[in-house]
């Protein structure tokens, strides 16, 4: 019972060390944002993100989740910037007071493709990496175990919390409180929902911190981990190579004056 989107397909991408995937994702994001031309994003998409998605066997889930996130943004982006981009001069279509400019569409294309890369790369990481493994890997590299605890614990709490909230919401509706009406009315409905939810949360906190302390959470010892995180020398090398290549890709065009 967890609230993450992780799907275990057992692919080679799933078996990679979480740090390798994290570094790769960061490199992709830095490249598409540092080289502000639309075809760089397109190229990264074609040669890096899509092949990895295919290998990971998560392609369908990836497209479904990403489409839900991206479609509204992309539609608004193209409509709004196509019509109202401040730098827009070249009119493509005019329709009454509305004018679509090519500068606006070009601007939207640049931003849109970058967002596609950003969303696909990060959703791919989350789909193929168990959050527990990611936390273990980061803690092993010196991240405070408190971060790992908070993130893992929250991920497991959210479903329980949502159930509790839904139960209260249903109870409110059963008592005839409609969730329709003016905003003020709807906020009034929210308050009796929040009260029990938060009071319940507080009574639990004392218990939870006691239980954690009893298991040495306050200990200053260097943490160990029961489950080892898989790694290989190839991956260790690649975690240095990927940032180096990215840096070169970003710096060389500037140095040679190509951009």
């Amino acid at each position, binding site marked *: *019972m*967890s609230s993450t989107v992780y799907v275990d397909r057992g692919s080679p991408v799933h078996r990679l060390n979480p740090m390798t995937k994290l570094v790769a994702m960061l490199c992709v994001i830095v490249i598409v944002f540092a080289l502000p031309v639309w075809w760089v994003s397109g190229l990264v998409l074609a040669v890096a993100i899509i092949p990895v998605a295919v290998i990971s066997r998560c392609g369908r889930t990836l497209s479904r989740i990403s489409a839900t996130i991206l479609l509204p943004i992309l539609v608004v982006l193209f409509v709004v910037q196509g019509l109202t981009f401040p730098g827009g001069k070249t009119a493509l279509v005019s329709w009454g007071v509305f004018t679509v400019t090519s500068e606006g569409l070009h601007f939207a294309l640049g931003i849109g493709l970058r967002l596609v890369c950003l969303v696909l790369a990060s959703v791919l990481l989350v789909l193929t990496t*168990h959050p*527990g493994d990611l936390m273990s890997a980061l803690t092993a590299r010196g991240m405070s*175990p408190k971060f*790992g*605890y908070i993130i*893992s*614990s929250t*991920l*497991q*709490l959210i479903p*329980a919390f949502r159930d509790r909230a839904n139960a209260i919401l249903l109870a409110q509706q059963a008592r005839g409180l409609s969730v329709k009406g003016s905003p003020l009315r709807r906020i009034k409905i929210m308050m009796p929902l929040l009260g029990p939810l938060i009071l319940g949360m507080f009574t*639990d906190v004392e*218990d*939870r*911190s*006691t*239980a*954690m*302390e*009893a*298991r*040495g*959470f*306050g*200990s*200053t*010892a*260097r*943490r*160990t*981990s*029961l*489950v*080892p995180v898989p790694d290989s020398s190839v991956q260790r090398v690649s975690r240095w190579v990927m940032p180096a290549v990215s840096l070169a890709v970003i710096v060389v065009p500037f140095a040679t004056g190509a951009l």
Partner: protein
Amino acid sequence: MIRLDGVSYAYPDAVRPVLENVSLDIGRGAIAGILGASGAGKTTLAKIMAGFIPAVDGGELSGTVSVDGQGMGDLPLAEAVSRVGLVIQNPFNQISGARYTVREEIAFGLENFGVARPEMQGRVDEVAELLNLGPLLDRSPYELSGGQQQLVAIASMIVLRTPVLVMDEPTSQLDPAGTRMVFDVLSTLRGTGITVVIFEHKLELLHQHADALYVLADRSIVAAGDPTDILADARLAEWHIGSTRYTRAARAAQDRGLLAGLQHLPVSLEQAVAVFADDGGAR
């Protein structure tokens, strides 16, 4: 093994103390039950034994608490918890959530104390075998029943090998099946050398499992001794603790003029049967 001498405690800003002059001494490997009405200060006493008071809650603590002859007074909490384990009422709140399987949940404390992986694996397997948790090890602790979750909480403590384990009403939020699971663990722990202090309301089960009982009332320990003697004590009603159904039945019978010659009221099934046997023989 765990010994309290003249312990008094008041919460910060409190007008009067919760506990006054509490003394008790529980031997190695013993299973000691502590009875007390709600509000008698059971949770406070449990947290004092486990080193959480005054480390977390502050307040004024006087007297001494010692485990295996060593004072707990000046230990930082992280040290204290490696001597005395603590299991609390609500099983759900004890799941750290930091890990995803029962196996990792049990190992969480060992990870915090930096125990090396091979030793960690050995200890987790050992505890899982002791408490019969084998089939649950790869499941999520959130999917378990309350009783199973409480077993995992107990296992998470035992795996740390603290010489003393304090349980603060571990069955108060469990169904009868879960309650039985927890008390079965007490039988399992007998003979391992772990000293168990259990705060409980379930008198008949305590009578079966405890070596000694203590009564916490009026801010102090007012009675201590053999479970049979304590449970037969007429003052239990004054302390708002009640009595077992066998004692209640015998008392009701006496009220109606039966069992007039009975000196010691029965506190368990066996003793009740014995009373019937005696009575039958007398006739």
